[in-house]
């Protein structure tokens, strides 16, 4: 099976291969060769003259490495070969001896940084092999995204179990010799587990008389491919076996354990403890600790202590293999902010049955690499648990999945991943779930396993025969559709910003801490200081959009945004939708027919008028001070005597803080209230059958009389007045305002006398007000 095939089949099993990394050698033409003889160079005594055999031919090579010795298989680069750094190899004279090639170090082959000697090849590679084409130099690494519930797949063995299920085989584990009953270890160390709930299984094994050295290449390179750093021959084995079986291991320097004892217990009070990464950690009560006679030597399942770690001087090793309760490990790891390879596995739950197998595997591997003798026996505490027994009915399987699965297929599927079907009953399967499957708790979990192995692709799509007839359009959607259509037609671009705000924004907008808009909701872990608060208004976000666009040469902008804003109230939070719109610059940069005016207050007010008209809501403006608006025009938007928003021109000093150098007019309205008051289905009014009559009036009106009150006064004169507009306004000494009044009857054609009479009343009414005079 190719790497690609394997990857896609694993992926379709729910073990998603995110990427396939191809490992290709950066050298070329390098061959495995056996060293036949090593002689000191006749002239240069720090060099050796070696004879090496590729099986086809024998070469003479000059070499300076101390570790070259007969019978070793080494990497030979002969004429035409290329090293990792691009160097081409040729014959050359060294002190009168012709060297036909060179023996390479790991660094010269681009494998590791090691240049301490020549690369002694793994035993598996036979002489004569062209190294380019073989593992581990030519390889694939599968980057697997293991689902959070599948801790059992965080190991080579776990993945092999899934692969075995795909290809119909079972993975094997190394077998060990029968254990002798002599408990030599009892004389060397004591073990005491005080909290068995936190640590239901703990195994100690020992190895005496080791020599710490670098690990063999195969171990180092596999660790590197898995993203780990080789350290020494003991620590590397603990990591290597963890990758193999998913069992985190920890090795202590036996002689650094005070009182020759290990105690597993919960910390009773806060203490300081230095972990092997050199960081002082504060251990809190209820963190699980591994202690010696003196105090802590490791934070259980997370990280060992500096005080007992393996060093170059270590002679005797005590190896811990344990099962720690995931909840304890998770809590401590989160609090300490440590996510180690070990804690990752303990948190998700490991295989309690294999704790000792991993320990034995590791001890034997350590012995093979670092030498020494294995201490007979083990120390162990194990609070055994029974496997879970779960029944799943055929009926459930078939009705949940929508496909009839043959019971035999279901049994095979479960067996292939080590879930034992204890009994096939008339109506379903009684299963025994191995303890490493922490994710399987009830029937639905078994159905998922069956479906996963049966293959989702074999379940054919159907449509639900549901009787659900709840379908009804949400009222809100209609309001939003109207809103978005209105702004699109009004020439506004819709913006969407993150619903965040910073204290800086509140300061920029001059919103004092006592202002309702300052009553914001803080995020405990914001992504940055700029996004520390939930926004209480949209304005700040869009002002930044305006600055962003102005900086990119876009000078004429109409932007709106709608979204929720969040206000802290009492102990809770109120969130409601808001709509904000802003205009800056002018309608267009230029038009050749004539000048294009800059936007002013009446442009934004017009947009507001159109918006309210779209929802058939009446509103008025009331002068009000808004912290960030220019006082000359800032106003509250009033509907039914209630303020539901504001409108105006942004203060120049505020704009400057955002780097904006042109005027910005804007408004923000509570959209929830608009939705409450909006009338989406207007009532029809008959089209008048009689002609309308138009009369114009001009008055001098003092500045302190709001024009809206004058318009209201005119409208009140008669129900025949259907519209009053302002068609001219200019100011010399006094303000002159011209009104166009439309008269309309729905019953008959209006007579001149009627209009004239109304005209007289209008003039009389207005001129009766102090500060208004008729212009003639």
């Amino acid at each position, binding site marked *: 099976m190719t790497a690609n095939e394997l990857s896609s089949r694993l992926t379709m099993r729910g073990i998603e291969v995110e990427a396939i990394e191809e490992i290709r050698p950066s050298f070329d033409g390098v061959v495995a060769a056996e060293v036949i003889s090593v002689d000191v160079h006749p002239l240069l005594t720090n060099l050796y003259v070696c004879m090496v055999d590729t099986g086809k031919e024998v070469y003479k090579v000059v070499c300076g490495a101390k570790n070259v010795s007969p019978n070793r298989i080494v990497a030979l680069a002969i004429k035409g070969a290329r090293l990792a750094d691009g160097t081409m190899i040729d014959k050359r004279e060294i002190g009168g001896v012709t060297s036909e090639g060179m023996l390479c170090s790991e660094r010269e082959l681009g494998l590791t940084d090691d240049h301490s000697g020549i690369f002694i090849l793994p035993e598996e590679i036979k002489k004569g092999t062209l190294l380019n084409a073989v593992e581990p130099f030519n390889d694939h690494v599968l980057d697997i995204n293991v689902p*959070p519930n599948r*801790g059992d797949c965080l190991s080579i063995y776990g993945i092999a179990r899934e692969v075995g299920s795909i290809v119909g085989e079972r993975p094997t584990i190394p077998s060990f010799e029968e254990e002798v009953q002599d408990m030599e270890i009892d004389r060397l160390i004591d073990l005491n587990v005080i909290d068995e709930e936190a640590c239901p299984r703990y195994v100690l094994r020992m190895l005496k008389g080791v020599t710490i050295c670098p690990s063999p290449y195969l171990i180092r390179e596999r660790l590197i491919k898995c993203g780990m750093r080789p350290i020494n021959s003991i620590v590397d084995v603990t990591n290597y076996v963890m990758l193999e079986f998913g069992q985190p291991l920890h090795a202590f320097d036996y002689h650094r354990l005070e009182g020759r004892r290990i105690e597993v217990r919960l910390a009773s009070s806060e203490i300081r403890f230095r972990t092997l990464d050199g960081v002082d950690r504060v251990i809190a009560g209820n963190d699980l600790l591994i202690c010696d006679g003196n105090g802590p030597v490791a934070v259980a399942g997370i990280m060992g202590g500096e005080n007992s770690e393996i060093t170059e001087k270590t002679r005797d090793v005590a190896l811990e293999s344990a099962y720690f309760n995931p909840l304890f490990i998770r809590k401590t790891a989160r609090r300490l902010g440590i996510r180690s390879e070990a804690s990752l596995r303990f948190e998700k739950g490991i295989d309690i049955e294999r704790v000792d197998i991993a320990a034995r595997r590791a001890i034997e591997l350590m012995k093979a690499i670092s030498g020494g003798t294995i201490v007979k026996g083990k120390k162990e505490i194990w609070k055994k648990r029974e496997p879970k027994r779960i029944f799943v009915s055929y009926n459930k399987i078939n009705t949940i999945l929508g496909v009839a699965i043959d019971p035999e297929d279901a049994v095979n599927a479960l067996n292939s991943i080590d879930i034992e079907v204890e009994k096939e009953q008339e109506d379903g399967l009684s299963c025994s779930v191995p303890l490493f499957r922490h994710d399987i708790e009830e029937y639905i979990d078994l159905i998922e396993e069956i479906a996963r192995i049966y293959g989702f692709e074999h379940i054919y799509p159907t449509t639900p025969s549901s009787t659900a007839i709840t*379908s009804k359009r949400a009222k809100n959607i209609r309001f939003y559709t109207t809103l978005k259509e209105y*702004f699109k037609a009004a020439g506004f671009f819709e913006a969407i910003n993150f*619903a965040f705000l910073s204290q800086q924004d509140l300061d920029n907008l001059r919103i004092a801490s006592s202002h309702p808009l300052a009553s914001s909701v803080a*995020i405990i872990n*914001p*992504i940055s200081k700029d996004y520390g608060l939930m926004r209480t208004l949209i304005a700040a976000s869009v002002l930044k959009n305006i600055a962003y666009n102005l900086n990119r040469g876009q000078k004429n902008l109409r932007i709106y945004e709608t979204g929720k804003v969040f206000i802290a109230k009492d102990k809770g*939070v109120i*969130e409601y939708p808001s709509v904000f719109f802003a205009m800056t610059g002018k309608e267009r940069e230029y038009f050749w027919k004539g000048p294009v005016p800059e936007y002013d207050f009446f442009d934004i007010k017009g947009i507001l008028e159109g918006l309210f008209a779209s929802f058939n809501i009446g509103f008025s403006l009331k002068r009000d001070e808004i912290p960030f608006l220019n006082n000359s025009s800032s106003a509250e938007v009033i509907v039914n005597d209630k303020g539901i928003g504001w409108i105006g021109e942004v203060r120049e000093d505020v704009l400057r803080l955002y780097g904006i150098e042109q005027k910005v007019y804007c408004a923000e309205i509570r959209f929830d209230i608009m939705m409450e008051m909006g009338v989406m289905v207007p009532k029809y009014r008959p089209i008048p059958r009689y002609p309308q009559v138009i009369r114009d009036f001009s008055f001098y009106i003092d500045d302190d009389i709001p024009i809206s009150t004058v318009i209201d006064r005119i409208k009140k004169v008669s129900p025949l007045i259907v519209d009053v507009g302002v068609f001219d306004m200019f100011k010399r000494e006094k303000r002159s305002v011209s009104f166009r009044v439309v008269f309309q009857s729905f019953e008959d054609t209006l007579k001149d006398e009627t209009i004239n009479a109304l005209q007289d009343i209008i003039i009389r009414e207005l001129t009766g007000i102090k500060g208004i005079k008729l212009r003639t």
Partner: protein
Amino acid sequence: MDIEEIRKKVEEGLASIKGYEDLERVRATLTGRKGIISEAIDRIKTLDKDKRREYGREINAIKERVEAKLRELKAFYEDERRRAEEGVSKIDITMPGKTPIMGKRHPITQTLDEMVDIFSFLGFTVAEGPEIESEYYNFEALNIPKDHPARDMQDTFYIKDGLVLRTHTSPVQIRVMESMLPPIKIIAPGRVYRCDSDVSHTPMFHQVEGLVVDKHIRFSDLKGIITIFVHEIFDEGTPLRFRPSYFPFTEPSAEVDIGCVICNGKGCRVCKDTGWLEIIGSGMVHPQVFRNVGYNPEEVTGFAFGVGVERIAMIKFGIDDIRQFYYNDIRFLSQF
């Protein structure tokens, strides 16, 4: 004047019209009150009775011809004059026109609305929920207990007192199920938040959640609904696959991939050489979720799904950096 003579004079008169200004003069001499034809008509009564009829018919025919000809010439010369006048003020039609100022809806809104349309068509109702959500609705009720590794799947923004910014639209499922009995068929579109920011993540993004609960809802039904949706929002022939996955609140869970639209499944940077793009998380509602809202999982089953709106929009429009959606650059927004 006999008929022939009149006819000759008439033809001479008409032939003498060389322009608009001649029209009135000629009309007066022919059909005017004292014109040739009027005089000829006046003479009818002086003729013998037997000749009158014949003569009258001839004169009338001539009169009609003259009137028709004059109308024709008048129209011709008027048209000629109009064209001459308009020619003087002819405009350069190649000058730029006045384009209306048009707004645009954000591409996310456009995509979201299209998704809502499709699901509405399939009979789903729109439901809503708060963006600041309790940990209970966002996690516990969805079978994500405290201190469970699944909490790490989503980087959560925390607010005081057990409140979070919702990390998905799934809490709306719970709110809907708590408020009504099955059958249920809803979607919940909305904004969600995760503490993450790079080329493919923004701290706020949009999702559409779907939930169907009834008797006899099957995994195959989930496949059916999702397949229809994918074929509506993309092309009819878009390949898709359902791949086992893990979500705490669904089981079995499936990730839905579509064939990469950039490389047509051959493998490229966008699909990380897999030929597939992940677009939807889905699955059968976990029995524990039903128990949490007081439903009996022995009586009802259901499926749920969540679609990332940005993801769909990126694929549809070919956008390769999710952050583009949130700069609100007019040059970007105006493209959609």
